[in-house]
């Protein structure tokens, strides 16, 4: 818009034309350096033999070959697949169910909604701490059930190599599902009621209304929920640290915890950088199409 002025330009106009770019430039510079510059740097490190300190000797794809040869990395990827799938599916299922139910002119909606939403205000460190004690067989749920006389009740997942990963899902779903509910509720409230009424006059049942009209109309909400949850899952670090510390053994290792330990405690910076690059690629595979679609739509 500013570029379209054709009148003879005095100093003031010239300044006015440059001012927006001038004001934007610090943010841009910061982004170019701290985001894209840093990405390039980490990618470069992933091709070097960096150990405790960065080194600039290139070693080709060695780090990637080592990375994918490590059983800890394989474990981390499998854990991420299990965790992300269950986390996303359960959050969306609960979120959608609660949103649909809450949309039925529920008395006390004003009270229920904040209750569903408050966990998202808490950090994963707090969430993890709370669930850690709740799930601890010694003092938590299992112990409580025993106290109440259900002697045979067992719930030791958090101490069990095969099941510990599912405790991450429980805590993460508790933290995020209310937020997904809010997104679906917003979508539901945006649907034109007249259209539903028209379909109803044509004899559609509630079930069919939802299946045929409402849920397809919620597509944008599904997409946003998926994108947000998927990127949260790939980044998950704090929750693991607080809830299980990656254990028992390495049973709840995720790529994020792997990257941190290889880079900063095991002095394998090259391998750590390579794992960070793989994480970025995973997120980019989801985000780039989304960002692209978002930008096209807004034109």
């Amino acid at each position, binding site marked *: *818009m*500013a570029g379209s002025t054709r009148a003879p330009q005095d100093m003031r106009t010239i300044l006015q034309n440059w*001012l*927006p770019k001038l*004001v*934007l430039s610090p*943010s841009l510079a*910061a*982004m170019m350096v701290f*985001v894209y510059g840093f990405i390039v740097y*980490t990618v470069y*490190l992933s091709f070097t033999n960096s150990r405790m300190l*960065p080194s600039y000797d290139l070693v080709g794809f060695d780090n990637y070959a080592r990375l994918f040869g490590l059983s800890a990395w394989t474990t981390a990827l499998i854990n991420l697949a299990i965790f992300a799938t269950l986390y996303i599916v359960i959050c969306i299922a*609960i979120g959608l169910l609660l949103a649909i*139910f809450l949309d*039925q*002119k*529920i008395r006390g909606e004003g009270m*229920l909604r*904040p*209750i569903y*939403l*408050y*966990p998202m*205000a808490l*950090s*994963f*460190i*707090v969430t993890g*701490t*709370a669930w850690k*004690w*709740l799930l601890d067989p010694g*003092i938590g749920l299992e112990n*409580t059930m025993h106290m109440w006389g259900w002697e045979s009740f067992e719930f030791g997942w958090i101490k069990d190599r095969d099941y510990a990963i599912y405790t991450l899902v429980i805590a993460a779903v*508790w933290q995020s599902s*209310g937020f997904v509910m809010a997104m679906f*509720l*917003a979508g539901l*409230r945006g649907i034109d*009621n007249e259209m*539903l009424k028209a*379909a109803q006059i044509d004899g559609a049942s509630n079930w069919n209304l939802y299946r045929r009209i409402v849920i397809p109309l919620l597509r*944008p909400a599904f997409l946003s929920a998926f994108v947000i949850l998927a*990127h949260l899952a*790939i*980044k998950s*670090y704090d929750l693991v*640290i607080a809830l299980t510390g990656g254990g028992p053994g390495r049973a709840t290792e995720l*790529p*994020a915890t792997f*990257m941190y330990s290889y880079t900063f405690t095991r002095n394998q910076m090259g391998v*750590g950088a390579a794992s*960070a690059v793989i994480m*970025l690629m995973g*997120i980019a595979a989801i985000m780039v199409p989304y*960002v*692209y679609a978002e*930008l096209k*739509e807004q034109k």
Partner: protein
Amino acid sequence: MSMGAQDQAIRTGRITRMFIYVVLIFFALFYLLPFFIMMINSVKPLEEITGGNMMALPTEYTFAPWASAWGSAQIGVEATGLKPYFMNSILMVVPAVAISTILGALNGYILTKWQFRGSNILFGLMLFSCFIPFQIVLIPMARVLGSIGLAGTTSGLILVHVVYGIGFSTLYFRNYYAAFPTELVRAAMMDGAGFFRIFWRIMLPVSGPIAVVCIIWQFTNIWNDFLFGASFADLDSMPMTVALNNLVNSSTGVKAYNVDFAGAILAALPTLLVYIVAGRYFVRGLMAGSVKG
């Protein structure tokens, strides 16, 4: 947001409604349970937790765990409690939120009302930067903070949170300002109003709702951050989340569950407070955004 009672297309029978209420209340209990347990156990003497039932109300109330978590629990070398770390977090979060929100408002204003060739691509780059896994910047960031002398300081953490907060704050303000009539801005320009005057007199007065959303979002994200705090802070600048984790996972001595519970609530309190006071505006602002899109 509330609709006329007869106007809703979807009606439900008595039995279905009963079922719906049961499900909704069940989930309300599920969400409340952990907080309830943290609360009741933070005011119990330790023996009541280890030797008893976690779900039971305290038979004897004590605020000693709270006092200990706040002022005397062993976290660093000295037994200072969480207090100094709470202050660290406050000193970090207030400037970081203020700076990133102001920059976001200016950027959003420029990207919608002063568009130039390539501004859309720039916005795309910013949008993508919101979603990078921070693991990809940990190593270079540690190097840079070290070389400019900000490693292990609160100023360093403020810098980190500002640069990685700009993406989201710009995104919020940009989408909000995009819906604001450009004609008004153009008319003001015709009248001779400049860049800052338009921002100050026209854009800022209507920015209330989105500013609330942005501030709440940045506040919770920065307060709740653990990765950056754990990577870049030292004992003197350690934020609350890292201190809490150290408290809970310290392996020395008898596990003081009640102190841990009190500490967890202390760490959650500021964001909970913000959520309780301003949460409805956050949801409303978010909903306004997502319904449009």
